[in-house]
């Protein structure tokens, strides 16, 4: 006799403990196995693109660092590069170097947060998260020195950065450059060969290279599936052209590779910061740009490699002080396209692992 089992539908609701921000997933379960998944967004939609149409170009900077609230420097950098390409502004070298230093520090912070919460979803009760947050605090203190705020930094302006780094910035920056590699060794010793972590993440949620490209995923998700594509290498902006660093590439595109790619990327960012420490020239940090400046009529698209993937801004200017249209290509939203395909057939405990390894930030998805 066959026992009639009917699947139950549960809501991993917007206030679930382990969704990163407010993300709702309507999951149909047959026992433990996931049968159907339907993501529901929009809980954090603040209408950034509509707001941007009523703000001047400099005021939008404060809007951008509230999009992906874990990597606000990179959002600023993406927006500011797009505006400079639109208006044809040139940026002094020291400004470019300061932007790259701030961007790479923010990438380290974002990857630390991603790894910490990934382990938290796996059940390691807070210890790796606390270690990552302890290191994040040191970098946030650097941001406070640099621009006065820790998270919503709005440090960059069209034409460069708004103010040069204070004198006591450089010694503590040097201290972090020396202390972080030891911490990375410690985190790798804690996590990389941990058998339970291997069982829980190896071979779970595999994204094939072909479907990674078809679904236009970007950032660590794309690189973990074996495609060596990094905008800092393929389309260098600011000073990445004359810095040498590597890109970590995964082989089988599972959750473990995405986790490991982020850890190795932190080490690469440290290499970049080390080179910036030696190469940074002195001089002005910002070219002369009036507050309410009017870029020429036209449109342009520019994108950078943010910690989540390719973050791009498409700006249309009609000659006024505020853009006619400001579209944001958000990597987290597009990285979620293969979510359904990656989740089907796995157990509910794996759902958290796969979703955690995608490292999606709801502020950027819903904008």
């Amino acid at each position, binding site marked *: 006799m066959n026992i009639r089992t009917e699947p139950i539908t549960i809501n991993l609701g917007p206030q679930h403990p382990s969704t990163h921000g407010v993300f709702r997933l309507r999951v149909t379960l047959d026992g433990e196995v996931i049968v159907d998944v339907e993501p529901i967004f929009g809980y954090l939609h603040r209408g950034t693109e509509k707001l941007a149409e009523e703000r001047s170009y400099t005021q939008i900077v404060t809007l951008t660092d509230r999009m992906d609230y874990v990597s606000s420097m990179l959002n600023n950098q993406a927006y500011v590069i797009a505006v400079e390409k639109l208006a044809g502004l040139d940026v002094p070298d020291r400004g470019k170097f300061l932007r790259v230093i701030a961007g790479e520090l923010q990438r380290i912070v974002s990857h630390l947060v991603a790894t910490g919460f990934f382990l938290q979803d796996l059940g390691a009760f807070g210890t790796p998260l606390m270690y990552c947050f302890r290191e994040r605090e040191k970098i946030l203190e650097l941001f406070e020195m640099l621009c006065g705020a820790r998270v919503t930094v709005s440090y960059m302006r069209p034409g460069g950065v708004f103010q040069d780094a204070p004198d006591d910035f450089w010694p503590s920056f040097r201290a972090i450059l020396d202390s972080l590699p030891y911490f990375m060794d410690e985190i790798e010793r*804690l996590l990389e060969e941990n058998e339970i972590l291997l069982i829980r993440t190896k071979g779970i949620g595999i994204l094939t290279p072909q479907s990674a490209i078809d679904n236009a995923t970007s950032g660590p998700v794309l690189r973990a599936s074996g495609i060596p594509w990094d905008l800092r290498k393929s389309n260098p902006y600011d000073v990445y052209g004359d810095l040498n660093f590597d890109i970590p590439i995964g082989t089988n595109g599972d959750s473990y590779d995405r986790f490991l790619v982020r850890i190795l990327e932190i080490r690469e960012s440290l290499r970049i910061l080390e080179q910036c420490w030696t190469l940074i020239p002195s001089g002005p940090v910002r070219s002369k740009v009036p507050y309410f400046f009017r870029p020429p009529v036209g449109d342009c698209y520019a994108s950078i490699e943010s910690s989540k993937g390719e973050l791009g801004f498409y700006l249309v200017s009609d000659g006024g002080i505020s853009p006619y249209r400001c579209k944001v290509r958000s990597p987290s939203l597009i990285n979620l396209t293969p979510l359904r395909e990656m989740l089907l057939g796995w157990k509910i405990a794996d759902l958290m692992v796969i979703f955690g390894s995608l490292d999606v930030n709801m502020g950027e998805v819903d904008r």
Partner: protein
Amino acid sequence: MPYGIGILKGMMVTMANFLRKPSTVQYPETRLKQHPRFRGEDFVWYEERCTGCASCAKYCPLGIIKIVTSGSGSQISEGEKYKLETFDIELARCMFCGLCVEACPYDALHLGSGFERARERKSDLVIPLEELRSSPKRPSTWFRPQLEKKNHNPFEGQTITWSDVARPAIQDPDYEDMGKRWVDDR
């Protein structure tokens, strides 16, 4: 390598951290070090410098600065000062981005250095004119390179009077600038 070696290595790392000093501090008793550029929430405002031009109100993305000025009979003449009736900053909606401080042409408005201004009611979160006048003058050095040159640090209680808070009046042009004949090539 035996099977459980990864877990043992992890245990050794946690034990190593167990023996280290905790990295958190007891907040009200001991405080973390803050930096002069910290964007505090109690605004510092110099009445002597402020001409009531309200470019800060115009430039604030959220439009939360309310300035009402009136022709003050005797003082009003071309380019002089308006008489300020109200200068309210609604801290409840402020996001401390500092764009108003950036826009102030006369260095009258500065960000403060405190962050512990919590009130029971939202209406108490509006900074009226009198409070701006009477609040201690410890500006943060955000977007004020001249304060940084004086290595002014608001957290050591140094106050600054209105006269030496401003940018040097004349940007003395260097020789390369002098060479240019037309002003707009400079």
